[in-house]
């Protein structure tokens, strides 16, 4: 079990007003799953993502990640968990603009205290894994959106996390790039990487194996995707259409 949530709740206090963003969430996610979290804005999916990503803590219930009770950890320990157990992929890539793709991928390893030689080796093999070995010395502004997102995925992968957490990873991409990114995710998932993806696009969610639908802070549905869309097939169709 990678993720196990028991009766998880989150209440935001804003002065006198309390907002219950998440109510009694019970979720279990197994190793090698590929889960999409869906829901309109205000549904609690962002709150769920922040809690899964250990950027925020729940106000009630328990959250176990890879066998660790996250609810009991302090700020320093949370940073360590984010560093080693979670790989973030963001909608707006969030690469540091001044440094090269390779250096961006090295960043999580710097905080993990890995020596520079090993960092370089691991970073370049992560970039190879997402098919970007030729652009590793380029800076983000010399890359397309799809390439930037692949750098971000390489960065997320590099510390071999328990989980990749992607927040609207295709939100800033055209449909071809989106499919390419989804194909990278599907490949990784096939290789055994657990992925949780937050999206509001049903097309994207259909690439995953399981969909959790949120509304008003409650999980309304937990569905298995019967026939996930294979991004590689879609890309093949795209190129055939162009011809």
């Amino acid at each position, binding site marked *: 079990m990678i993720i196990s949530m028991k009766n998880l709740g989150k209440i935001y206090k804003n002065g006198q007003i309390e907002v219950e963003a998440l109510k009694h969430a019970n979720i279990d996610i197994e190793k090698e799953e590929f889960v999409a979290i869906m829901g309109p804005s205000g549904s609690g999916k962002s709150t769920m993502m922040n809690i899964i990503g250990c*950027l925020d803590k729940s106000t009630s219930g328990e959250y176990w990640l890879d066998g660790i009770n996250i609810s009991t950890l302090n700020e*320093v320990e949370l940073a360590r968990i984010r560093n080693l157990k979670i790989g973030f992929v963001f909608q707006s890539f969030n690469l540091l603009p001044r440094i090269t793709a390779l250096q961006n991928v090295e960043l999580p390893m*710097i905080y993990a205290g890995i020596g520079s030689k090993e960092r370089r080796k691991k970073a370049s093999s992560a970039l190879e894994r997402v098919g970007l070995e030729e652009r590793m010395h380029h800076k983000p502004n010399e890359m397309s959106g799809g390439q930037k997102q692949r750098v971000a995925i390489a960065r997320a992968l590099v510390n071999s996390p328990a989980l990749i957490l992607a927040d609207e990873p295709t939100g800033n991409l055209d449909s071809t790039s989106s499919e390419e990114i989804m194909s990278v995710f599907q490949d990784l998932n096939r290789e055994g990487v657990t992925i949780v993806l937050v999206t509001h696009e049903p097309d994207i969610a259909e690439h995953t194996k399981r969909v959790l639908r949120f509304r008003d802070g409650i999980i309304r549905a937990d569905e298995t995707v019967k026939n996930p869309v294979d991004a590689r097939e879609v890309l093949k169709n795209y190129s055939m259409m162009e011809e």
Partner: protein
Amino acid sequence: MNIIESFKQALSSLRANKLRSILTMVGIIMGVFSVITIVAIGNATQSYMDNEFAKIGANVLVVYYKSGTINSNDILKNDDLKAIGTVEEIKNVGTAISGSGSLRLGSKNRTASITGISSQYKEIMPAEMAEGRMINDIDNSTRSNVVVITEEFANANFNGQNPIGQKLRVTLNSGSSLNLTVVGVTETEDSPFGNMMVNENQPVSLTIPMTTLQSYYGDNTLNYIYASVEETDSSELKKIADKVVRVLESKHGNKDKYAIEFLSDYQEMLNSMLGIVSSVLLVVAVITLVVGGIGIVNILLVSVTERIREIGVRKALGARKRDIVVQFITESIMLTGISGLIGILFGILGGFLISSLIKIPPVVNIKVIVLAFLGSVALGLLFGVYPAKKAADLDPIESLRYE
């Protein structure tokens, strides 16, 4: 994150904003530069003065008249030198009188400032001889027409000929003229204002026996008498001064006409004045440094605001608060540290430059340099803390959302 890594990252982010980094550094460079230069010049002046005073060696006292009515029997005469010499603590007694006149040099007339010195004067106010000898006992007892000139005058007027034995015709302002034979040349040393003195319009300085000068003026009034003592303890000096005054008073049969001061008093006074000037300048320099430091805070705060997103990303990737604090403080320390080094370099150069302009040998004080460097690093630490803390306290979720 280790230290090398932090330095690399800090360097790369400082390089990303080159102009901004350089402008921020200028403030600190100026501050450190001023501190170093001021301390260097202060030290140089101090050691120059100490040196000059040390040349005199023993402590020197000056006997002069108190203000008030001076009657004819109060006037100090040549035989008072001997009288003072009877005080056992006194080593040498000397005096100098001055006159003025003019000097014919080829077709030009130059004014001359003539100093008549007693025989022991050279023991009290030593002068380095480039050639020949100083005025001595025999010159004074025989009122001989000999003269000691300065090196620059010798160089300018005798075109490489041996100045010793040359004749100079000097007309005193009283009208009488003297034929003087050069017996010695004093070395001209580099002095703060040495170069400014070399000027055709400046009077030529000539040193002749006191008695010779007095014989032409027909007057043996002394304005002051110098005496040297070995003693340095100030209470002992006070006693010696009292003795000297008593000797003179009993000889002249008067009271409260003479006063005594020690050269060491002047030295102390000069030193304390120099100290005050230096400290005032130093305060100004330190203010410059603080203003530079505020510039650093300012620019780091801008940098934090600009990089909120980056801070969020770093936190999401596993940076602890401590890592972010270290990152920003490293940038700050790097800014001030590098500025400190540049400032020190310029400061030393500036010190050398100004020293050479005012002809004082420069004094490079390692302690001050190390202090200045550590000080600028400390400044970076001090001024980096607030922006760094601000950056580290940012909420990762908000920062990641920040546009």
